[in-house]
């Protein structure tokens, strides 16, 4: 067993020291009836690296990767290039194989990078403070909703018709469990501002998204104004972090809480996880925030150092009074995010956003030129929805046969959204002109 250092001699020597006859002694508290004789059945025995690697390679080979051909799937996760140095950094033993920095004197590496991460996220979202990450965008959204209820002592949240349906589902689930009323607006490509018409004195917060699930970008300022009038909060959501380089960020729209998915920066697609939830808010809400926070302090010599702070919000100290039950978050993904942002810098980040937007514009131009294609998204960053006369599922299947993975059908996200013919397509810096041409050619054939 290559991962088990104890030799048979070690084991008996240790049993000797302990004064036990065999390891069975340690399991005496296990009820007789639950003691297994021998190994668990129906499972193979241990295998060497070569055999295991071959098995996994076979499984991997059954999947089509986002780099195998023209690829336009977005809807909450995006195909971006991750610099090789980012992956090298997160594989560094001292980052990869350590734990939550409970002992700051020997965790300054993790803590300083978290402090850098928090600063970057706050700046990107134009918010006052950001935490050290959540599981992902959808759970951040749910936590934002319940946080808003704690802050306002109200029990009603309103979700826009453009909020990613998975985010809406995760939010509804947590809210309902806590007896919070959830108002879900009708699915709408361009309906974020509708939120303004659904704020009342019971409303804890309204949750809007820009770019939304259909790719529509919206300045939520009008919503913020109405919400604030009613002493409700605006939670501003994004699923494409790269958009923050170009699109009006939550902070500039008066958002009280900004949540989003950070995968696009530094993290591969990996079939949906692990990703990194971004969570930022205004200064005055800090003590109601969920999740870990890293703060600056000094050591016994007066030298600057960093520690986890405001833990009185957290479960390990506050238990049933905690702001959330989150413990492990997305530390390593946050490191990938912050390392990639450090490589980009403000300049590179903006340029990356511009390239994404241009790719999407080129794609839109190419598809728009095809008779029968109707682009539904009025304003977008790197993703948009369009309609064809043919059922979207059929269209995507036919595109697939032609080697083009053309996007996501709206009906998969919104089964009852009456959007059977709608496809949501995304383009990024990885999208080439050839990819776009291939998409247009294939689509022309199938509709």
């Amino acid at each position, binding site marked *: 067993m290559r*991962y088990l250092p*104890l030799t048979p001699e070690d084991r008996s020597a*240790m049993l000797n020291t*302990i004064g*036990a006859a065999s*390891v069975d002694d340690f399991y005496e*508290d296990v009820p007789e009836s*639950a*003691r297994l004789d021998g190994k668990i059945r129906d*499972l*193979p025995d241990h295998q060497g690296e070569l055999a*295991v690697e071959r098995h996994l*390679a076979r*499984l*991997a080979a059954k*999947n089509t990767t986002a*780099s195998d051909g023209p*690829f336009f799937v977005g809807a909450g996760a995006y195909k971006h290039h991750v610099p090789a140095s980012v992956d090298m*950094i997160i594989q*560094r033993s001292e980052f*990869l194989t350590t734990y939550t920095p409970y*002992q*700051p004197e*020997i965790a300054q*590496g993790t803590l*300083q990078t978290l*402090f*850098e991460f928090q600063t970057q996220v706050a700046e990107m979202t134009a918010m006052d403070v950001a935490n*050290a990450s959540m*599981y992902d965008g*959808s759970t951040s959204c749910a936590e934002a909703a*319940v946080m808003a209820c704690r802050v306002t002592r109200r029990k009603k949240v309103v979700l826009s018709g453009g909020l990613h349906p998975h985010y809406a589902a*995760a939010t509804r*689930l947590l809210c309902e*469990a806590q007896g919070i009323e959830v108002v879900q607006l009708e699915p709408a490509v361009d309906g974020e501002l509708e939120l303004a018409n659904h704020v009342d004195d019971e409303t804890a917060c309204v949750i809007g998204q820009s770019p939304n699930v259909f790719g529509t*970008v919206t300045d939520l300022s009008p919503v913020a104004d109405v919400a604030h009038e009613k002493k409700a909060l605006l939670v501003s959501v994004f699923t494409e972090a790269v958009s923050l380089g170009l*699109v009006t960020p939550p902070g*500039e729209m008066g958002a009280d809480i900004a949540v989003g998915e950070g995968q696009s920066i530094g993290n591969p697609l*990996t079939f949906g*996880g*692990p990703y990194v939830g971004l969570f930022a808010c205004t200064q005055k809400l800090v003590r109601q925030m969920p999740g*870990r926070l890293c703060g600056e*302090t000094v*050591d016994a010599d007066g030298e600057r150092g960093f*520690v986890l702070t405001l833990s009185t919000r957290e479960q*390990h100290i*506050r238990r049933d009074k905690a702001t959330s*039950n989150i*413990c492990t978050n*997305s530390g390593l993904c946050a490191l990938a995010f912050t390392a990639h942002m*450090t*490589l*980009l*810098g*403000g300049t590179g980040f903006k340029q990356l956003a511009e*390239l994404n937007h*241009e790719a999407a*514009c080129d794609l839109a131009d190419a598809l728009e030129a095809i008779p029968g294609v109707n682009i539904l998204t009025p304003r977008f960053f790197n993703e948009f929805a369009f309609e064809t006369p043919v059922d979207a599922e059929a269209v995507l299947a036919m595109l*697939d046969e032609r080697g083009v993975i053309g996007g996501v059908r709206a009906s998969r996200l919104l*089964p009852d959204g009456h959007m059977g013919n709608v496809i949501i397509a995304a383009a990024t810096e990885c999208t080439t002109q050839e990819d776009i041409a291939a998409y247009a050619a294939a689509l022309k054939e199938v509709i």
Partner: protein
Amino acid sequence: MGMQSIGRPTAPVAANASMSQTVSGSKGLQQREDLIFEVGAWDKTGVDLPQPKGGKSRLGGVTRKADTSLPGLSEPEAVRHYMRLSQKNYAIDLGLFPLGSCTMKHNPRLNEKAARMPGFADIHPMQPQRTIQGALQLIDELASWLKTLTGMPAVAMSPKAGAHGELCGMLAIRQALIARGESDTRKRVLVPASAHGTNPATAIQCGFIVDEIKADARGRVDMEDLRGKLESGDDIAGIMLTNPNTCGLFETDIKEIADLIHAAGGYFYCDGANFNAIVGRVRPGDLGVDAMHINLHKTFSTPHGGGGPGSGPTVLSEALAPYAPVPYVVKDEDGFRLVEDIEGEASEAFGRMVAFHGQMGMFVRALTYMLSHGADGLKQVAEDAVLNANYVQARLKGVMTPAFEGYCMHEALFSDAFAAEGIGTIDIAKAIIDEGYHPMTMYFPLVVHGAMLIEPTETESKQELDRFCDALASVAKRAAAGDEALKGAPYFAPKKRLDETRAARKPILKWTPPTPEAIAAE
């Protein structure tokens, strides 16, 4: 301070005497490194992107007013920045990491290699299911390993970490109660005082009320107290019990507890964080458990990465299986399929917890680990983990105070009773840092005074355990003797003891540019 000798040659002097400072701030291989905001430059970048063609825009004016003012670094500087920072971290790869309840075992490198296969790392959660059959098969294989190892009929794969798995289990219980029409009456959840903070927090997140149960002198659930709390049991939703528990002990009466809870009409949530102690030897399904999360980053060796990501698949009993959240993978004649909507076969599902399908990257690592160990290896894992913990307990019980009588399971728990007046658990922990080790878990569980919870895991050799025990024993002796020097520890770490009170009093949570005054002051 070699400087002092300038001008008047002196004989060679001892290190600490002659050199305590350097001009650069670095010392030998230990590099000083400031924040990127201090070392980076605003116009620098470590990427070469093509120039945007410009001209096109469909943003409709919804554009950012102020560009992000973030510094960048060229690749050489960025790599160096993070390498230097990494030097200030402890890690399993450097030595024993005995953080009790966290199961910091070796992270096999094959796991990392497998997770980076493009067939897993470069696939999108929403691509056509025809194109991801391998991914769905992997999830299905991992699921069946988990079901077989736990002896449970169902598993929810989407929870993102242990606490999220707790949420999953408790929401399933809530849904079952709704189905029974008792969700409004049954709100009380029993939680031992020794429980991990996430347990009560989770119960509250699900709208339940927490009722704390006592521990007995043996560190187990106080059955008297439990029976008492169950007398008027018609408001009982269930119990959240960790087993082996957070004192590192197996709950002797666990089956009776399960029976009592079920008799009272409640459900049994088992916190599976400590599954490593029994994997391959005991199946929670045989103990009457209704729901249990498994921390893949503990029992199944996925790296914790300094704070995550984790992954918390949650196994469910027959009673709770119907309420499992979407999405999940099913296999039928034409291959594997994702059930994503709450309808048909999934009409009773309690909902969707998260976008997409869970922590695929962790699934790949965990399955790689399981295939590597196999049924025989996993049993050995549990036995060696327990053997190592008992060895540590045996080696240290003479100089420290075991919290409870008898053998432990995967972790050894001590109280600070042995320490002299004025020397606390924290001083012992910090002194261990100087000896080259990460401290044990401090002050948890709460039921033991100045608790020190030591979990070596099975991936430590006897030599390493001996070296650690020798070091801790010597620190313990110093603590017993009231050595005040312990209060100054750590001495050899990158930083001296950090002021956490100050950090919390006036939180500085991000870097802000120095004010002109500050600059002037320099």
